[in-house]
């Protein structure tokens, strides 16, 4: 499903110094696998997700998603790939405040031709109903609770039946119980939609729920979990 090979991301600083923030020699994630991406702040989790989603590009290396060579795509093709293949759940939900729950979802569908226009409204309604928001279709984000907003954002991420569901720190701004619900929802949704799930988090409680944890250190390199000093074992027990 996802294959990364010799990925590097290098930023040029204000004094033209080269700053390598990510270096991954090899990473394979199988179809339908539920993988967590762990690491401290600044370890390159978001950078890696952005490279996989095509939001930004790697300085070098190859990225294959669903047998599609993402590293060879130009920006326009990456936009299409993202709309077609990837569903993204942001940390702060990032719902568009001027649009209703239903519109936030149909808008995401309009960026891809995957769901025919005549089916979009129904699919959006179905998704919201599945997530318990059947009575909140026409509510705007500010009229919804934090948990409800999170579910709308999840529905939006699933709107185009993505092969890859990505979540960046989905539990960073919620309490423990809400975090548990979100992870459950992500797991269930990815299973029902046969999507591969990749979640970035530095929350040990979240990492516990995944098949595999990919650990990044502060240099953006993959390391074994125990080398990163994370209390992974304890987290799994909680």
């Amino acid at each position, binding site marked *: 499903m996802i294959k990364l090979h010799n990925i590097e991301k290098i930023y040029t600083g204000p004094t033209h110094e080269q700053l390598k923030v990510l270096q991954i020699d090899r990473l394979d994630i199988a179809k339908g696998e539920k993988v967590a991406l762990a690491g401290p702040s600044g370890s390159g989790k978001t950078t890696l997700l952005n490279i996989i989603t095509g939001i930004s590009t790697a300085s070098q290396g190859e990225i294959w998603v669903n047998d599609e060579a993402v590293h060879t795509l130009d920006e326009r093709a990456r936009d*299409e790939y*993202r*709309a077609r293949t990837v569903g993204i759940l942001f940390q702060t939900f990032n719902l*568009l405040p001027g649009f209703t729950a239903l519109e936030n979802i149909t*808008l995401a569908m309009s*960026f891809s031709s995957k769901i025919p226009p005549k089916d979009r409204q129904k699919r959006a309604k179905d998704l919201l109903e599945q997530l318990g928001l059947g009575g909140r279709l026409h509510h705007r984000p500010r009229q919804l609770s934090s948990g409800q907003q999170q579910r709308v954002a999840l529905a939006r991420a699933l709107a185009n039946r993505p092969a890859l569901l990505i979540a960046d720190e989905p539990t960073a701004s919620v309490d423990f119980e809400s975090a548990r619900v979100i992870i459950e929802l992500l797991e269930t949704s990815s299973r029902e939609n046969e999507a591969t799930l990749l979640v970035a988090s530095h929350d040990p409680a979240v990492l516990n729920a995944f098949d595999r944890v990919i650990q990044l250190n502060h240099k953006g390199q993959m390391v074994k979990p125990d080398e990163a000093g994370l209390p992974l074992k304890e987290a799994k027990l909680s």
Partner: protein
Amino acid sequence: MSLLQVAFRNLLNRAVQSVLTIIVVAMAVGLALSVVLLSEGVQNGINRAAEPFDLIIGGKGSAQQLVINTVLLQGNPLQNVPFELYQKLQQDPGLTAVVPLGYGDNFRKHKIIGTKSQFFDFRNKPNDPAYFQVAQGRLFQKPFEAVIGSEAARQLGVQLGQSFQAEHGDEETLPGEEIHDEHSTNPYTVVGILKPTSSPADLGVYVDIESFWIIHAKVLNQPGDPTGPQAVTAILIKPKSFPNDIYRVQQQINSGRLTRDAQAVIPYNELYNLNQLVGQGQQILSFMAYLAIAMAAVTIFLSLYGAIVERRRDLAVMRALGAGRRRIFVLILYETGLVALLGVFFGAVVGHLSAWLISQVIRDANAIQVIIGVPLEEPLILGAVLLVGLVAGLLPAITAYRVEASRYLSPA
């Protein structure tokens, strides 16, 4: 959701900003359009007022004043023309009609025009119907019978058979003031009301010029007073051969061969000059209108640019969801286009409405029918504003186009 729906929703989401911008655009368009509509309408109205009259002969002085007084019924008349000239012209075999005009009295501020019944036989072209037509009653047949212009009848509330007393000069008699002269002892009777001509002639009160001569036979006039025994303020002529006889008579009079105390002017030419003067004022107003359009463009730019800066995160989200840069660019242009389109639409409404309202004021004051049409400039102005609006939206659209999703997606 289509991109157009998204653009419309984005405008609704910042309704106050959008409405204010649309109002500014509408006002600018309305101003520009009303200037064009009114200036063209007034010019058409003025030209139309002079249509039936080929040549006006009047006293020495300003040619424009002569036309303005005779055709537009505004201002003071010039000195009288010699009665002998009137008599000489009557003998001219090249003229089918020589119609005297006498001014100097009024009926509640409406000019009383002494003339002959041939006056009502003028027409724009030989085969056209008569320019003046009776709507009610009949034309005057003897002194002290009056025929009222349609607008004068409306404003004065005059009915057929009603009598009225003329007042000397241009000012009406003040309340309580009494007139004890020939004016008061010779009242007029309304025998006819004319159909509207959509010209200042509708404001006039028409009587047999003999009535003037009877009333003023005993009046001692001040020098320059257009009234008096056998006084003729102006003469209209109808040629047998157009335009040869017009130019011949004009040349005879202006060269001083018939008299040294008169001038002959072609009203169309004088009104053309007048319109040129009006045109200069119009140019200044047009300049101000274009300035207003430029300000509207700046308003569109500021409003949209501010909105883009505020919405960078939303745009980044859309980019992350798969919206291409081009789609974002087009979305912002749609938003600009909608603002400009709505501004242009309401501006066109405001322009036509205000031009119509002002034309009513002009009509009531001067009876000049401001003919409001759809001038050639109108689609040009509206199209230009749309284009200017879109250009004003280009920079915000480019700014939106350049939004990097990865930069604005992180939590604030």
